């Protein structure tokens, strides 16, 4: 279709360019700020051309506040969240789509309802659970009067078990973020588009349900998995509120938290914007790398789409 709408084109382009500027200008500022010394950055107006302090600033950023350790923490959490979310959601979507069990649709709608409940909404109860996941068990043992007999019979220290906590642990950082209604929903919709004959052919070929999932559904979901990996990795990497709440030890801090703590570390002092921006660049790098690396597969998956 060929249309000639010069005015509409002009307006559209102005809007688009404005959008690009709005997104890119802060990034450009961060990049510029990371290349200057602190006094230069604090000038008014701030210089708009790159300086030559980038390397120094990057080194300072790495050295200050244990950024290396924090990047590793962030990486563990993001990978854990991504892998966990995909594994959990593909399994629950598989169960909901292919098995007939009581309250199947109830389960689906419960999952669907949590789409509207991000972690920020349930953060207080989630914290309570993460702090003492087995407290309920202790209460139950107390109520039923089984604690004494159990301790004397097995020699277990029930108190220690009940006091077990997920605070300041990778499990605590990852597990509460793992359930994903969005991913479950996406996989369910994908599975619904896969013709039922494939399932029947696999049944006749002698495939068990898990074989069908691994041999047929998983390869057919690759494109979705890649797209989800990109989204979920960035989601996990950018987590702020939950890691802030659940970690107190410096060794468990994630990179995003670490950076924000540096800003507010000394309220009376001027934040060292040049090294902070250099740190921000370093922290932005892994998600960018994931996007760039998977982009190719993402497009490839779309191109030789096998449906």
């Amino acid at each position: 279709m060929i249309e000639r709408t010069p005015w509409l084109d002009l307006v559209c382009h102005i809007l688009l360019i404005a959008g690009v500027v709005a997104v890119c200008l802060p990034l450009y500022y961060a990049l510029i700020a990371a290349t200057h010394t602190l006094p230069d950055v604090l000038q008014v107006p701030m210089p708009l051309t790159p300086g030559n302090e980038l390397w120094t600033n990057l080194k300072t950023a790495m050295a200050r506040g244990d950024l290396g350790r924090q990047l590793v923490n962030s990486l563990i959490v993001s990978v854990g969240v991504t892998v966990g979310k995909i594994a959990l959601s593909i399994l629950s979507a598989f169960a909901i789509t292919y098995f007939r069990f009581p309250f199947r649709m109830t389960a689906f709608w419960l999952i669907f309802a949590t789409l509207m409940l991000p972690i920020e909404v349930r953060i207080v109860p989630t914290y309570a659970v993460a702090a003492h996941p087995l407290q309920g068990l202790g209460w139950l043992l107390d109520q039923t009067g089984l604690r004494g007999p159990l301790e004397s019979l097995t020699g277990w220290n029930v108190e220690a078990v009940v006091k077990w906590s997920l605070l300041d642990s990778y499990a605590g950082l990852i597990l509460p973020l793992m359930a994903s209604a969005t991913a479950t929903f996406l996989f369910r919709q994908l599975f619904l588009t896969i013709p039922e004959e494939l399932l029947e052919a696999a049944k006749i070929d002698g495939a068990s349900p898990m074989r069908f999932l691994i041999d047929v559904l998983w390869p057919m979901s690759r494109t979705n998995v890649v797209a989800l990996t990109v989204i979920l990795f960035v989601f996990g990497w950018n987590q702020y509120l939950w890691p802030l709440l659940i970690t107190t030890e410096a060794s468990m801090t994630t990179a995003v938290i670490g950076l924000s703590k540096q800003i507010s570390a000394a309220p009376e002092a001027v934040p060292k914007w040049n090294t902070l921006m250099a740190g921000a660049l370093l922290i932005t790098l892994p998600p960018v790398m994931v996007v760039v690396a998977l982009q190719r597969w993402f497009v490839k998956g779309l191109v030789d789409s096998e449906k």
Partner: protein
Amino acid sequence: MATVDIRKVEKSYGPAKVLHGVDLEIRHGEFAVILGPSGCGKSTLLRMIAGLEEITGGEIAIDGRVVNRLEPRERDIAMVFQNYALYPHMSVAENMSYSLRIAHAPKQTIRDKVAGVAGILGIGDFLARKPTQLSGGQRQRVAMGRAIIREPKVFLFDEPLSNLDAKLRHQMRTELKRLHLRLDATSILVTHDQVEAMSLANRLIVMNAGRVEQVGTPGEVYARPATLFVAGFIGSLPMNFFKGKVADDGRSLSLDGGAALAGEGAQIGPPDREVVVGVRPDALALAPSTAGGLGGRVELVEDLGSVKLVHLDDGRDGFVVAAPPDTELGEATEHGVKVRAKDLHLFDAASGRRL
């Protein structure tokens, strides 16, 4: 030696009953074709044999073993689906060998079998291709290869040719028949296409509305349809039906509308009975119009090349005569028809059963 015994099999979806007690015995080496209009329950029956649908009532036994409670993989059957159901992400070789790989067959065995089956079906050149890179006929062959490679006791085909174009369908039909003879297996095929059914079957099972109407060789079913439904369904030219009554002596018929058919001296039916008379268009011959005989005015003529279909208006539902191609007919002229008594199919007007 594999037989399939179906005893009083019923199927309901909730309150809706789709199979009303089907009894069938399929012998070893038979090519049984289940023919019926859509919605008659034929696919459901096949899927119950395969184990893809639960059996509401009755019993299915494969090779003497009741399989009601067995998983599809335990039944020693293979199935070819209408839309082929090939795994889109696997190559042709992987598609065919999937069942063997699940069963952990040795790699060498798998390679040999794939090569062997690919040779039989002539798909050896495509083994590395994906299903999307194949034509309809090639996909069909791969789907058949996937079934053959397992060497099952029974092959089940669910409308396997209906996604192919007419020419390819004809070719695959003959190939299917040849394959069946070569493999010496028991095959059950479901179709709504009567030409396909007649050409493939050595036993034809005609179903309607969840019941078996007739079982027999294609020739038998064509020559002596057991019910009005079968009579109307079988035959590439639909049969003509006339309502009428057998005379008191049982030797002649009077049709509604006044025409009479004589039995040429022989008994043609039980005396004094309301009947439906069926006559195939090719059993009728045009003749000069006679008073009191069957006939009508030419309404339209379809020239099919090998035959001319003459639609005659007899003042009631009308009927069709298959006339030789060199017949010349004036427009709207009156014609009578001749029919031999042995070409009349008489059915009870009330029950629709053959008399």
